[in-house]
C-alpha cells in the first residue's frame, strides 16, 4: 500500500524542517544559511507532495508498519495538499524576508530554530491522520508560536503571547478530553477508523456530540472564532513582522483546518444545521466586529490582526452551506471556494504583515495616521499592501473574489440569503480599513526614486500579495481537481 518513494514527501515535509531546526539550534553561527537551505528543502518537499497528490490522488502512510488501528497514519488528500502548498510557499517567503529582518545575532539565533519547528508542526498538523498526534502537533504549534511571538521581548509582546500560550493550552486540553471520550467509546485514535465507527454507531450520538463540542470549542479558541478571539490582536500585533505573518496567515488557519477536517471527515454523521448555524453566526459576528475594530485600529499591525479575526469568520460561514448542500458539483464548488478563501487569505495576510513590518522598520512606528511619507517612499511595499488589501476585501481578480462569488451564490441558492448581507457588510468595512491605509500613500511627499528599494524584504511581500491577487483569482481551476482527487474522506 505504501511504496516508500511515493509517500516519501509525506515524511519529508515534516522531517526536513525538523532536521533544519536541529541544525540551526546546534550551529547558531550558521543559522541564516542553514535556515534558508532548510526552508528551500521543505518547500521543495511540499511541492513534491502536492505533485504526488495531483498525480496519484490521496496519499496514506501508516508509520511503523503496524495495524492501522495501532499506529499513526500520515494522510494527504487534496485539501491538505493545497493547504500544505500554500503554507510552505508562504513559509519560504517569510524565510527570505526574515534573512533581512533580524539583525541582532541573538535574535537571529532564536528565530530560526523556533520558526522551523513551527513549520514542522504546521506540516505535521495538516498531514496527521491520528487524533492524539494532532494534539501533540497542536501543542508544538502553540508553544513555538507563543515563543516566536514574544521574541521582541518587550512587555506587551510577552504579556500578549503569554496569554496566547495559556489560552492555547486550554484549547488543547479541551481537545484532548474530546479525544479521550472518543477513544473510550470507539477504541481507536485513527481518524478514518473513528469516523467509520461513529457512522456505524448512531446510538453513541451523545458521546460523539460531546466530544465534538469539546474538540471544536478547543479549536475555535485557537482559531480565534468570535468571541474567543480576544487573545489574537495583541499577540499578532506585537510579534516581529515575519512572525506576525506566520501566526496570522498560517497558524490560525491550521486550527480552522482541523475544525473543518473534524467536521467533514470525522463527525459528518452527527453534524447538524443547528451546530453549523451557531458557528456561522459567530463567524458572521466576527466578520462585522473584526472589520469594525480593524477600521478603528490606530496601528497598522493591529489593523491586520483584527482583519484576521474577520477573515476567519468568513470561513465559518461555509459550514451551514455545506450542510445544506447535497453532494454534487454545487458542494464541490463550495468546498473549493472555502479552500480558495483560506489560501487567498494565507498569501494576502502574510504579504500584508511583511509589508507592514517594512513600513514599521522604515518609519520607526506603525501608526496609520503618520505613515504618509514612508508609504510614498516605498512604492513596492505600498503596492504589496494594496494588492493584499484588495484580496482581503475580496476585489477581483483576487482568489477571495471567486470565493465570495461562490459563497454568495450558494447562500442564495440554499435560501440562506442573510449571509449575503454579512458578506457585503464585511466587504464594505474591509474596503474602508484597507483604503484608510492606502489613502496615506497619496500625499505631497517627494517622488520615490525607484520601485523596489530593498529587494530581499520587499520582493517576498510583493510576491505573496501578487499570488493572492492574480494567480489564485485567475487560475483557481486546479483546486477543483485537487479536491476531487482527495475526496476520499468520509464526508460525501
Amino acid at each position, binding site marked *: 500500500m505504501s511504496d516508500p518513494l511515493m509517500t516519501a514527501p509525506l515524511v519529508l515535509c515534516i522531517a526536513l524542517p525538523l532536521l533544519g531546526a536541529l541544525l540551526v539550534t546546534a550551529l547558531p553561527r550558521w543559522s541564516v544559511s542553514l535556515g534558508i537551505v532548510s526552508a528551500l528543502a521543505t518547500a521543495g518537499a511540499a511541492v513534491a507532495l502536492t505533485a504526488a497528490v495531483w498525480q496519484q490522488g490521496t496519499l496514506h502512510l501508516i508509520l511503523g508498519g503496524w495495524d492501522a488501528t495501532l499506529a499513526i497514519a500520515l494522510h494527504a488528500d487534496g485539501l491538505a495538499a493545497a493547504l500544505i502548498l500554500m503554507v510552505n510557499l508562504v513559509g519560504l517567503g517569510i524565510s527570505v524576508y526574515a534573512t533581512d529582518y533580524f539583525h541582532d545575532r541573538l535574535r537571529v539565533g532564536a528565530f530560526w530554530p523556533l520558526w522551523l519547528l513551527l513549520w514542522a508542526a504546521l506540516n505535521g498538523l495538516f498531514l496527521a491522520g491520528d487524533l492524539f498526534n494532532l494534539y501533540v502537533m497542536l*501543542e508544538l504549534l502553540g*508553544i513555538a508560536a*507563543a515563543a516566536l511571538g*514574544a521574541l521582541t521581548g518587550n512587555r506587551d509582546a510577552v504579556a500578549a503571547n503569554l496569554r496566547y500560550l495559556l489560552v492555547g493550552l*486550554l484549547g488543547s486540553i479541551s481537545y484532548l478530553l474530546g479525544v479521550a471520550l472518543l477513544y473510550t467509546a470507539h477504541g481507536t485514535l485513527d481518524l478514518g477508523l473513528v469516523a467509520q465507527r461513529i457512522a456505524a454507531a448512531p446510538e453513541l450520538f451523545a458521546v460523539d456530540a460531546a466530544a465534538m463540542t469539546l474538540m471544536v470549542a478547543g479549536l475555535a479558541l485557537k482559531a480565534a472564532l468570535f468571541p474567543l478571539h480576544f487573545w489574537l490582536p495583541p499577540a499578532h500585533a506585537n510579534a516581529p513582522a515575519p512572525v506576525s505573518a506566520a501566526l496570522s496567515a498560517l497558524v490560525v488557519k491550521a486550527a480552522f483546518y482541523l475544525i473543518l477536517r473534524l467536521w467533514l471527515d470525522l463527525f459528518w454523521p452527527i453534524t447538524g444545521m443547528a451546530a453549523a448555524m451557531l458557528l456561522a453566526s459567530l463567524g458572521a459576528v466576527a466578520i462585522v466586529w473584526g472589520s469594525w475594530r480593524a477600521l478603528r485600529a490606530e496601528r497598522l499591525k493591529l489593523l491586520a490582526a483584527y482583519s484576521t479575526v474577520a477573515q476567519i469568520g468568513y470561513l465559518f460561514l461555509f459550514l451551514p452551506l455545506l450542510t445544506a448542500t447535497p453532494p454534487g458539483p454545487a458542494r464541490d464548488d463550495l468546498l473549493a471556494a472555502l479552500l480558495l478563501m483560506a489560501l487567498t487569505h494565507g498569501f494576502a495576510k502574510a504579504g500584508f504583515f511583511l509589508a507592514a513590518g517594512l513600513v514599521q522598520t522604515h518609519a520607526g512606528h506603525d501608526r496609520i495616521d503618520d505613515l504618509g511619507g514612508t508609504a510614498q517612499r516605498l512604492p513596492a511595499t505600498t503596492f504589496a499592501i494594496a494588492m493584499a488589501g484588495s484580496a482581503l476585501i475580496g476585489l477581483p481578480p483576487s482568489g477571495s473574489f471567486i470565493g465570495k462569488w461562490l459563497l454568495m451564490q450558494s447562500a442564495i441558492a440554499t435560501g440562506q440569503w442573510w449571509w449575503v448581507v454579512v458578506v457585503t457588510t464585511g466587504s464594505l468595512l474591509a474596503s474602508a480599513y484597507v483604503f484608510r491605509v492606502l489613502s496615506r500613500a497619496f500625499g505631497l511627499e517627494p517622488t520615490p526614486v525607484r520601485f523596489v528599494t530593498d529587494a530581499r524584504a520587499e520582493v517576498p511581500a510583493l510576491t505573496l500579495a501578487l499570488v493572492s491577487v492574480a494567480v489564485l483569482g485567475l487560475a483557481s481551476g486546479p483546486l477543483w481537481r485537487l479536491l476531487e482527487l482527495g475526496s476520499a474522506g468520509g464526508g460525501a
Partner: protein
Amino acid sequence: MLTAQFLYGGAGLALFVLGLWSFLVHEPLLRKIIALNITGAGVFHVLIAIAYRGDAAPPDPVPHALVLTGIVVAVSATALALMLGARLQDAEDEDRSR
C-alpha cells in the same frame, strides 16, 4: 471493573472542571498555570481510568503512553509559561522602578 473506571475517571472529570473554574476565575498568573495543570491532570486521569481492565488483565498500554507523552508536553508548556511570566514580572518591575 466499570465502577472503578467510572469513579476514577469521574474524579478526573471533577478535576477538569475544577481546574477550568480556577483558570477562569483567578487573576494571578501562577494560579492560572497551576489551574491549567490540574485541568490537564484531570484529562490524564480519564485516560488512565480507561486503561484499567480489571485486576486480571494487564492495563491497556496505549492510554498510558498517551499520558506519558501528555505529561512531557504539559511540563514543556508550563516551563515556557513560567519563564514568560518571570520575564513579564521583570519588565513590570523595571517599569515601576522608573
